[in-house]
């Protein structure tokens, strides 16, 4: 599997990471090499094998829909925000 510079450009945009031309070249070579390595799984017979969704075998874990107050204030929780407006996180215009 070869990932071209254009593929890399597309994936980088999907994951919201701006990349330089040099990075496009590097990542294209490196990710292609990794994909070639993992493609060895094609040779494993997995007919009639189920996927492992949870290695511990646990399934849905439920709890009561009850608010349990923690020893922390909303103000503390938001203390790392780059920009706040009153008690809200401030973001740039979404719809222009």
């Amino acid at each position, binding site marked *: 599997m070869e*990932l071209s510079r254009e593929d*890399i450009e597309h*994936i*980088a*945009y*999907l*994951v*919201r*990471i*701006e*990349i330089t031309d040099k*990075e496009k070249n*590097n*990542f294209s070579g*490196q*990710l292609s*090499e*990794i*994909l070639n*390595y*993992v*493609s*060895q*799984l*094609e040779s*494993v017979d*997995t007919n009639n*094998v*189920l*996927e*492992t*969704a*949870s*290695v*511990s075998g*646990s399934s849905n*874990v439920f*709890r009561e829909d009850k608010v349990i107050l*923690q020893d*922390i204030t909303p103000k*503390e*929780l*938001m*203390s*790392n*925000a*780059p*920009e706040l407006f009153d008690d809200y*996180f401030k*973001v*740039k*215009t*979404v719809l*222009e």
Partner: protein
Amino acid sequence: MSEREGLYKLTILQAGELLDRHEVASVDLANACLNRIEKKNKEINAFITVDKEAALESAAAADKRIKSGKRLGVLDGVPLGIKDVLSQKGVRTTAGSRILENYISPFDATVVSVLKKAGAVILGKTNMDEFAMGSSTESSYFGPTKNPWDLERVPGGSSGGSAAAVAADMCLGALGSDTGGSIRQPAAYCGIVGLKPTYGAVSRYGLLAMASSLDQVGPMTKDVADAEIIFSIISGKDSMDSTSSNYEYKKLDGDNLVENLKGKKIGIPKEFFGLGLKDNVRKAVENAINDFKKAGAEIIDISLPHTSYALATYYIIMPAEVSSNLARFDGIRYGLSEEGRNLIDGYLETRAKGFGNEVKRRIMLGTYVLSAGYYDAYYKKAQKVRTLVKADYDRAWEKVDVLLTPVTPSLPFKIGEKTSDPLTMYLEDVMTVPINIAGVPALVMPCGMSNGLPVGLQLIGKSFEENKIFQIAKGYEMLRGKIGGE
């Protein structure tokens, strides 16, 4: 102990005995470690953040309790290090990344609050590969950690800071995290003990998530008994982590530790003795197998036929989970934030500047293998092979108590040796990754020296049978005696 300075050499158990007998104070222990950090951290770079004041304050509080005969337990007053991927309230928690360079956690991870409640003195946060992605601690935004045995070599990773800090006596023990070997490989490279617990045995609440179906928190210590002490305290159900299991650790006793090895069935999976294993590592591990045999253990040849596929499985499942977990770093709620012309540009620039190369590679790879058209070929296929890898282990427990393997194919490598080629670095994990894929516990401990560098062995057990691993490991530790310089 008349020399207060040498206190940093103590194990947790030894320090506890001295504290109980009022022969040393917790403040003395903390000061001995803090002085050691001051002296050694410049060259080793094991700690990203040291909180001297808070450490001395909690040590003084421990001394007060101990003086009035109210010591909380074996960890009360004992100075520890915490991998900087675990949240600690009011303390900078970086995960080794620029994107969290100035992030102050507003809450404690469950394991951190459990250690605090047990009276442990937290010295600071240890260095690591960025977001725990790496096998050398070289991808840390805060510079590489050096191996205390040879400063030109890596300490392993991603918990390289915790491993180096324990090996260089900067703390009595530490916590690490292990997604594909991040506790065990650095433990082997630095000549200490490390445990990757059973998936679900320890809460991950407050652990900055890397790959949630694989991540576990575990102890890194100077000897096996200390690892058992920390594990017995941090393990168990936590309502804040729905993947944690109802599990109470029960120590297996036995007065004569070496005698415990008699009749134990030790499986040797032949596949682990391929995988590019170098002769010097092979020799040390084979010597250990002979020691087990002489002590009366039964050595049984085992085959785990899907071992060689575990690494490829890992490098699909792990990046897939990484790409999802790291989507939260958007520069809006916390962390580095680049202005950008509009919302999208803000994301693009924040994540470009905030993440290092290895993190970017894994996010991109993970998004690719999850994308429409490739999901079945990569992700679904890997989840099926995971079932086969796990089944290999399930079958092994019908025949053996534990499995014994090498930890890494070779000795600690030089700093810079593997940074240019990601795949070469990934191959470092070939003997540790299968254990996370199967979800079982594994302990690493030193078994010899080669060219002045430590060699480790790995004891793998059945899920939730950490007690059996510890019992066997303590027996071997006694049999083996001291290793290396000290």
